[in-house]
């Protein structure tokens, strides 16, 4: 018989051992995650150097520049409407991307989830195929389709539907199209994972009780699929908010999104503190979006017990 005391001691030794074993990994994660972030935070409070980089002199200008701008000539401060409009465009485009991917992603996921088990994997494989190609290449492919002498315009002109090409490239619509295409799989997969677990007997029961297909969808399927829908939306919204490649290729360097605005500060803008402050602002927006998610899903799960 072992004494209760020794069991206790053994357990605490065990716990200590586990901590020790995971310590290297924890340290690396901690350093890798917070180290660069701390540098970004530090840089946001320094003075920009003449050719990029920073001077080691504290200055609040980086943060002031996020929301306010000083007129070059009159030195008056006003709301940085250029930044605000880029923030608004980024949020709106990301929201639009999320909604459109939802509209396409949900039916797709539902379709896959209702196939016989054997063929589901094939459908899933098909969904992941675009991931096999580099993001840059996929974006250039979209460019080839929507440019003035691209597929769409050529076909429309051939059939005499339009006389001159429609300007689609270098517009917000082009950015939206590109982002929807790129992020669609990120919506389909979590929604599918959720629908796959859905008990379709509930759907049958609803039909047996004379529910209309619309009622089945809104009262049974969507409420049960909600965690998946929210997870998918978050997975699409967050990367879309910081998207860089898609807007820079399809937006033509004129319609900036947040990612491009930040990049600009580290290149031609030569204002690293402002770039750092903008990055942290972007992170804060993402954090807020995540908090909303955790609140929603968290309370949901509690309610279902």
């Amino acid at each position, binding site marked *: 018989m072992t004494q209760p005391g020794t069991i206790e001691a053994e357990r605490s030794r065990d716990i200590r051992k586990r901590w020790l074993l995971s*310590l*290297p990994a924890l340290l690396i994660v901690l350093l890798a995650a917070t180290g660069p972030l701390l540098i970004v935070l530090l840089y946001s409070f320094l003075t920009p150097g*003449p*050719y*990029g*980089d920073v001077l080691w002199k504290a200055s609040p200008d980086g943060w002031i520049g996020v929301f306010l*701008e000083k007129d*070059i*000539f009159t030195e008056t401060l006003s709301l940085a409407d*250029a*930044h605000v409009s*880029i923030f608004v465009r980024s949020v709106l485009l990301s929201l639009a991307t999320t909604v459109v991917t939802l509209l396409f992603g949900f039916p797709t996921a539902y379709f896959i989830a209702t196939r016989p088990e054997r063929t589901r994997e094939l459908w899933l494989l098909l969904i992941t195929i675009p991931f096999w190609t580099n993001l840059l290449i996929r974006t250039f492919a979209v460019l080839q389709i929507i*440019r*003035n*002498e691209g597929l769409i315009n050529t076909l429309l002109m051939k059939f005499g539907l339009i006389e001159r*090409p429609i*300007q689609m*490239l*270098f517009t917000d619509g082009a950015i939206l199209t590109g982002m929807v295409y790129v992020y669609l799989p990120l919506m389909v997969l979590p929604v599918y994972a959720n629908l796959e677990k859905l008990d379709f007997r509930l759907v049958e029961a609803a039909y047996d009780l004379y529910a209309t297909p619309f009622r089945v969808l809104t009262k049974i399927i969507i409420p049960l699929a909600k965690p998946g829908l929210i997870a998918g939306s978050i997975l699409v919204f967050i990367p879309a908010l910081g998207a860089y490649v898609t807007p820079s290729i399809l937006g*033509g*360097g*004129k319609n*900036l999104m947040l990612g491009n*605005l930040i990049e*600009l500060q*580290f*290149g*031609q*803008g*030569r*204002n690293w503190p402002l770039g750092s402050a903008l990055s942290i602002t972007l992170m804060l927006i993402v954090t807020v979006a995540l908090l909303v998610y955790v609140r929603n899903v968290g309370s949901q799960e509690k309610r279902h017990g």
Partner: protein
Amino acid sequence: MKRVLAGLAVTAAVFAHAGLAQAAGELNIYNWGNYTSPEMIKKFEDTYKVKVTITDYDSNDTALAKVRQGGSGFDMVVPSQNYIPIWISEGLLLESDPGKMENFKNVAKEWADPEFDKGRKYTVPWAMGTVGTVVNTDVYKGDINTWAIVFDTPAELKGKVNVVPEMNDVMDAAVLYNGGKKCTGDLTILKKVRDTLVKAKPNWVAMEYGTIEKMLSGDFAASSDWNGSALRQRLKNPAIHYGYPKEGFVFWSDNLAILKDAKNVENAKLFQNFMMDPENAGMNSGFHRYANGIAGSDKFMPADMKGAPEIDVPAQFASVGVPSMTCPPQVQELYTKIWTELQK
């Protein structure tokens, strides 16, 4: 504990390896995109048994920002003449003394002792040209020899004009268009410049570098551009013409330099010398379609470059050309501010 140490050792080895990845017989060139003749590089590789890798950049600022961080892994870079004093004063270039190299005798007299690199201590001429406009004359029939194409866009070109986002080129053009002198710090003129740019931007379709491909595909009908790029477009589509803005335009040159932290210094020196050989310089011009500052290289250029209006500045425009130069820091700071305001 041993495992921790082993883990650390592996991590350290990974980093060390990344730093030592350069083997002998290599040369890493960091250059503007679409600017290096593959044929000419092949010849260099075969002659000296060196493997050349070329990485693209799209603006002087990008190149400067990347190399300033150190550890870029590049051996050579091709900055514009107005940036070279910055590269030198920031201590980024190696004093390789091309002025004492064997082939230096071939450098044209007017390029042998330039203001931006006195005595050619760092750089070798790569290409030189002008900044102007390029217009598809099928779309617009009016006068193309004016910056109004970009800043007061005619109705036919609205929403079809691109602006190459090289800060100093655009700022210089806008200053000249408003009657200012290059590098002016005059606030009344700069205010007009700012207003001109902000007012003009809604008429632009994009601010991109890839003009050759997008002018030919019809995505752009006009753009600010460099002359060699314009020549390459005209050779593929005769309707595309290069305009010399009557308000004034800038003469520039790009020059090949070795980085101070280059790993393959000997190969880089060989390449600098190689580029001053008329045959090699001519071969390179046949690709990028700019003049190159090496005397006798025109014999080795394609026939269609001889007398091309993009290369030989027509006499009536030559007088309004101004040389590119580095502006004083306080002026540059104002330019950067206006530029950032425009980009937002």
